């Protein structure tokens, strides 16, 4: 079952198709990477999911139901461009935002206390936003995104501007929320973070879906028959079954010919009298796939 199902969604701005017939599913309980270069249509899509704008056509199902106003409470959104009311105090600001999500004042206060304690910032309640540093403001904003316990959280570049310690803190919270069943859409163009965090991805470019699926499957799909082999003596020259691409201290990267298998490669190496220390498949990084796929279009 998918928490969010996007079906043939189109959004056009003054003759320019920002979202062009996009369909994909976000699996329940996934950390889902929404990827794409700048201007690919990620923000437009997120704005449609968060009901900031409406799609020209297509359907969006949240937990199997058409997205409507009543589901506002089910979605938490941390926009890339962050902002809070600078003159308001942290506590009242969070209460206000939670009330707009449909929480009562007391519900909100309980949740906020929990989160402020969790982030070890209990004494911030009466601090004005403008007195906080950018990173500190981001924590407040994160709390605002999650305190109404949505079933789907959308994080647009959540780690920009955070120091490593706070990045880690935030990551842990994301993992924890996810382990408790919250689905998370994570929009970014930082591939190393995607690789680390995401279970599934969709890659968007020019308003269209280029590829989507579980991270492992995607890598499998785009693998290029590359292997890393480490032997006692350096591998010299390609054999019938493989070509040597690069060599370094960790070993040699080879590409297996399309009609050969790993068995053929190993057989050839063993026959040559060399001793194999290790042999491992090299899967493409998401970064490579990303760049290749984008350049292809």
């Amino acid at each position, binding site marked *: 079952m998918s928490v969010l199902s996007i079906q043939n969604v189109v959004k056009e701005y003054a003759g320019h198709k920002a979202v062009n017939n996009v369909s994909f599913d976000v699996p329940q309980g996934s950390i889902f990477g929404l990827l794409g270069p700048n201007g690919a249509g990620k923000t437009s899509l997120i704005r449609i999911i*968060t009901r900031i*704008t409406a799609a020209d056509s297509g359907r969006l199902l949240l937990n199997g139901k058409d997205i409507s*106003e009543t589901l*506002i409470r089910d979605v938490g959104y941390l*926009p890339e461009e962050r902002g809070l*009311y600078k*003159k308001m105090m942290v506590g009242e600001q969070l209460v*206000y935002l939670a009330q*707009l999500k449909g929480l009562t004042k007391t519900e909100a206060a309980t949740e906020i206390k929990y989160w402020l304690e969790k982030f070890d910032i209990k004494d911030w309640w009466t601090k004005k936003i403008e007195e906080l540093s950018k990173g500190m403001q981001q924590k407040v904003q994160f709390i605002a995104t999650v305190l109404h316990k949505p079933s789907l959280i959308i994080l647009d570049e959540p780690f920009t501007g955070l120091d490593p310690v706070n990045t880690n803190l935030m990551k842990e919270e994301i993992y924890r929320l996810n382990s408790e069943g919250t689905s998370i859409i994570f929009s970014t163009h930082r591939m190393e973070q995607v690789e680390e965090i995401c279970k599934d991805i969709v890659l968007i470019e020019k308003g269209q879906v280029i590829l989507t699926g579980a991270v492992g499957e995607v890598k499998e799909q785009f693998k290029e028959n590359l292997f890393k082999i480490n032997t006692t003596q350096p591998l010299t020259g390609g054999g019938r079954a493989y070509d040597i691409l690069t060599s370094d201290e960790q070993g040699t990267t080879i590409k297996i010919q399309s009609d050969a298998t790993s068995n053929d490669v190993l057989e050839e190496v063993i026959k040559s009298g060399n001793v194999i220390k290790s042999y491992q498949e090299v899967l493409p990084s998401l970064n490579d796939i990303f760049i290749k796929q984008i350049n292809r279009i």
Partner: protein
Amino acid sequence: MNKVWLIAAREYLTRVRKKTFILATLLTPLGIGLLMLAAAYFAKSGSDADKQIIVKDDSGIIEDASVMDSRTMTYTLSNEEINTLKENYNESADILVVIPPFNDLNEASYQISYYSQEKLSIGTINKIEGAVGNQFRDYKINSSDISIETYNSFKTSIDLENGELLDQLAAGEDPKSSGKTGVIVGTILGGLMGFMMYMVIFVYGGMVMRSVMEEKINRIVEIMISSVKPVQLMLGKVIGVGGVGLTQLAIWLILTPAILFGVQHFFGGDLASTAGVSPEQLNQISSAADLSESKIFEYIKELKSLNWLLIIPVFVIFFFGGYFIYASLFAAIGSSIGDDMGESQQLMIPVSIPVVIAFMMLQPVLNNPNGNMAIFGSLFPLISPIIMPARLAFDPPMWQVALSIIILIISCVFFAWIAGRIYRVGILMYGKKVNAKEVFKWLFYKD
């Protein structure tokens, strides 16, 4: 709807709790009080310096100089030789006035001269001219065969009054028609209400605009819009700021008279004596301005006789309607611009023009409160919030009031719709130069 109130409440509370708001709200009436005090003080100190004036009268017209005395000026005749006087008048006086011989009774203009160490103010010169002029007038009357009574009867004051009112009064009925005083009261009241609307539109409309811009620049608007509809956010803002305006006006309406009363009270009696005006002079002034006690009473009576049951509710309707229309439009402007105040000036022009036109129409409409311009102004939606309240004291035909209100309500919906369309696109639009043509296109964007 619940969310609109939440937004309005936040908008209201954050503003009302601001130090600047509290200061402005409390200090404005205090400032008015201080200004009155200062004016009184300066009026007093300005006329304080008693002037001793020596008159060298070669015309022989003035018999007793003391009849020319006023509260601040004392006149004495002197027969000393002119050159001696010129040299030592300043030992005992401030000013020396020299009146040359006067022969021709038919002379209508006559020059006299003065000597003084310091420059005389226009006020002082006028007072001396007046005092000497009166002596000449009396002398001329005495020299002619016209009695002073005959002379006084030449000055006839004409009182043009509403015939219907006189008929009603003659028949011993309670007067229903409005008299001349009614016209004066109506003009003042109308002007006041029109001006108040003008202020409200610009002050609080501008506040809404800045508030929208602030949210857009802050980027919080994206979070807000993911929880509420843009129209809800806009309406909440308009209502919240409207509440701030009402609060401020209410406090001013209570505090200003209270402080003025306090200032009067503090200075033991009335402001007139604070200002250094004697009761006699006050009477002179008020009779000159037709403000004798009975006149004041007449004004109060006229004020009481106005149809307040119509004026107050209709004014309130136009107050809210006018504010609502313009605040929505200002919100739309605020949403279309980024952090560039210069741009806002340009986009504000189309919205400001009707307000300024309405304000300019106020005077002619008050002069002819049931003329064509007044009728047009009462019905045209962007102008009616200023013009219609101004006419209320002049008993406009009921159908016009009713039609004007209907048009106002329709316009409220219409302009809120237009503003909402612009607002929803504008608040999410960044880094784009926006002009009127572009904004017009936004009206037809799909959601």
